[in-house]
């Protein structure tokens, strides 16, 4: 036990140095950039898909983090925005294909353009849904808001299952009969030009890089947002609504902005997911998914971008990693194939148990934001002593002042 602790401390010390940080940064960049290529080259297409899926969940978790982490509004129906983005993206794509096909513009390649042309607008359906949901209910406090958002999430899922407005094709999902989702422009090009030998630049790999770019863009936007007037208003409101209102923060519009911007990322992620997988059905947007995204945000560390990303990576990949480790050749001496398969079955059980243990040991999450971390240790002995000292001095200063008068 002691040896492990010392080793961990040594690792931690190394990464705290300047050199260590550079090494860490380059290692991380190398993994995110090249790891999927290695998996693809090794013929492990499944892991490439997991990488891309992790990317989608990172987008979702970062979006939800605006609502839950920055603004402190618990939303248990985030999947509604994801679903709206996915279905809107698909339907608008079909519409666009038809219009372009009729007009004859862009000829053959027209059908490949839907994803890219619609991407800049992908956030809009999400934002509309966010405002639609947020406006009537944002006056509710804490847990009531949570349950109402849960309700909206379920309403959206049920509406989709019942083929609302004839746009969703019910439980069988989109595309329906007679509809097609063509590969996005670029997918074919990379396959033809960047494949060599046994290595094929696959569809999943292409989408992994598209999603990676979106994640980088999101990180950029959110960092800028956190330091903006709006970002500061969110933090002020999260810490104390009444105090924030009294210094001129418009609570309702600030909350609505959080909802709308958070929903925007749900929409973008949904749009991208729909065109990557080429198929959407109501099952992808159930309540458990919303809950898992909340878990990513909380487990990683609310309000902290690296924390939320780590949370998304762990929660998406953990069940698969548990299964992969159990099935790995390194353990073949220890586990029979049947036992390894059993561990695979047990992954959600283990995962649930780990969540409980994790919360008991580290309720603030893996990598909490600095401000949040400080909030969580309000009864620090030394700080308390300092504050008492200051108070005492202030009082006595006051005494001596009054003596003079």
């Amino acid at each position, binding site marked *: 036990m002691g040896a492990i602790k010392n080793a961990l401390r040594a690792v931690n010390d190394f990464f705290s140095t300047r050199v260590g940080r550079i090494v860490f940064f380059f290692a991380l960049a190398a993994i995110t950039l090249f790891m999927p290529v290695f998996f693809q080259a090794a013929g492990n297409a499944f892991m490439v898909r997991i990488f891309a899926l992790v990317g989608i969940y990172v987008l979702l978790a970062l979006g939800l983090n605006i609502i*839950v982490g920055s603004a402190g509004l*618990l939303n248990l129906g985030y999947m509604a925005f994801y679903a709206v983005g996915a279905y809107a993206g698909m339907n608008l794509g079909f519409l666009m294909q038809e219009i372009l096909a009729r007009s004859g513009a862009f000829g053959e390649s027209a059908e490949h353009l839907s994803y890219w042309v619609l991407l800049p607008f992908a956030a809009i359906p999400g934002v509309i849904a966010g405002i639609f949901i947020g406006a*009537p*209910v944002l*006056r*509710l*406090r*804490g*847990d*009531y808001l*949570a*349950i*109402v958002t*849960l*309700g*909206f999430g*379920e*309403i959206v899922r*049920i*509406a989709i*299952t*019942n083929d609302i407005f004839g746009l969703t094709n019910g439980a069988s999902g989109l595309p329906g009969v007679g509809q097609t989702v063509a590969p996005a422009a670029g997918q074919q090009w990379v396959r033809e030009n960047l494949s060599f030998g046994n290595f094929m630049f696959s569809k999943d790999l292409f989408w992994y890089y598209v999603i990676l770019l979106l994640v980088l863009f999101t990180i950029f936007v959110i960092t800028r947002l956190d330091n903006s007037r709006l970002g500061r208003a969110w933090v002020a409101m999260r810490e104390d*609504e*009444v105090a924030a209102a009294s210094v001129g923060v418009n609570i309702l519009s600030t909350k609505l902005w959080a909802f709308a911007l958070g929903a925007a990322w749900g929409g973008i992620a949904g749009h991208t997911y729909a065109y990557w997988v080429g198929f959407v059905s109501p099952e992808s947007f159930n*309540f458990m998914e919303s*809950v898992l995204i*909340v*878990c990513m945000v*909380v*487990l990683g560390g*609310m309000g902290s971008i690296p924390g939320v990303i780590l949370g998304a990576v762990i929660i998406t990949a953990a069940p698969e990693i548990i299964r992969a480790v159990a099935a790995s050749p390194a353990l073949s001496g220890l586990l029979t194939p049947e036992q390894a398969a059993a561990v695979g*079955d*047990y992954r*959600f*059980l283990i*995962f*649930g*148990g*780990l*969540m*409980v243990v*994790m*919360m*008991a040991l580290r*309720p*603030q999450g893996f990598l909490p934001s600095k401000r949040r971390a400080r909030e*969580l240790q309000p009864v620090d002995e030394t700080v308390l002593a300092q504050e008492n000292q200051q108070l005492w001095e202030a009082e006595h200063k006051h005494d001596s002042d009054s003596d003079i008068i």
Partner: protein
Amino acid sequence: MSVELGIVAQQFVNGLTLGGMYALLALGYTLVYGILLMINFAHAEMFMFGAYVGLFTLQGLSQIPFFTSSGPALLLLYVLTFLIAMVATGILGVVIERFAYRPLRHAPRLAPLISAIGVSLFLQNAALLWISSRSLPFPVLFEVRTFNIGGASISSMQIMIISVTILLMLVLDNFVSRTRLGKSMRATSQDRDTAGLMGIDINRVIALTFFIGPALGAAAGIFSGMYYGNIKYNMGFIPGIKSFTAAVIGGIGNLRGAMLGGFLLGLLESLAAAYISTGYKDVIAFVILIIVLIFKPGGLLGESVAEKV
């Protein structure tokens, strides 16, 4: 649209049966929320666990010839089944509280929520792996008779479910409002720290809450098994979120509110299924919730508490 009285009466009885289950489950949510201000997501799994314990007890005990020999013996069999399932589920609730929630009592608000989700995931998968991934039939050992009253057919099972539900509620209501332990529960939910200063053992009260809630949830689970004829590892999920909704509609933290909310939800859902659309049946609960909360943010029977500054 002509409204036939018989159909309305039929849906009314069906709604009361369904509402009774919601109400029993909602009581567990509201009790825990009243004391710990926490949404106990694992409560839906108490419903499932109770149903499984009930099924196995029923199967085990019905092997003994005595229990199926006569009417009163059969009644005893069912009473025993309920008691064993309720006590076992109550103990599970207390154990979960001790190991998953108590360490988090001073943690930030969301931490116990995540823990509860973890427990829920764990229990659901435990049932899936260790019992069965398919639904198991829930036997009914007594003869179900159907009475025809004013065009509505009411089964003896429905009568039993509704009456036992009401009985359990009366017991709980009296326990909380009349006994010393009930008083300490009310005190703890009003102000935990002050209650502690008055000499109330807070840990004991919380443990008691985590016994009563799951025990009632187990009863609801057995009812559900008997009524629908089968049980499954994920059977708790939908009733769970609806019951929580019912608790919020009634005013969370308020026991009578949870009962009212549960029955109201069951009734409206049955009527909506008959007159609006079965596909949108599950939406009704949430639409009602949103309407109630917009016009009465504290729930129907909840007090509107001013936010502390």
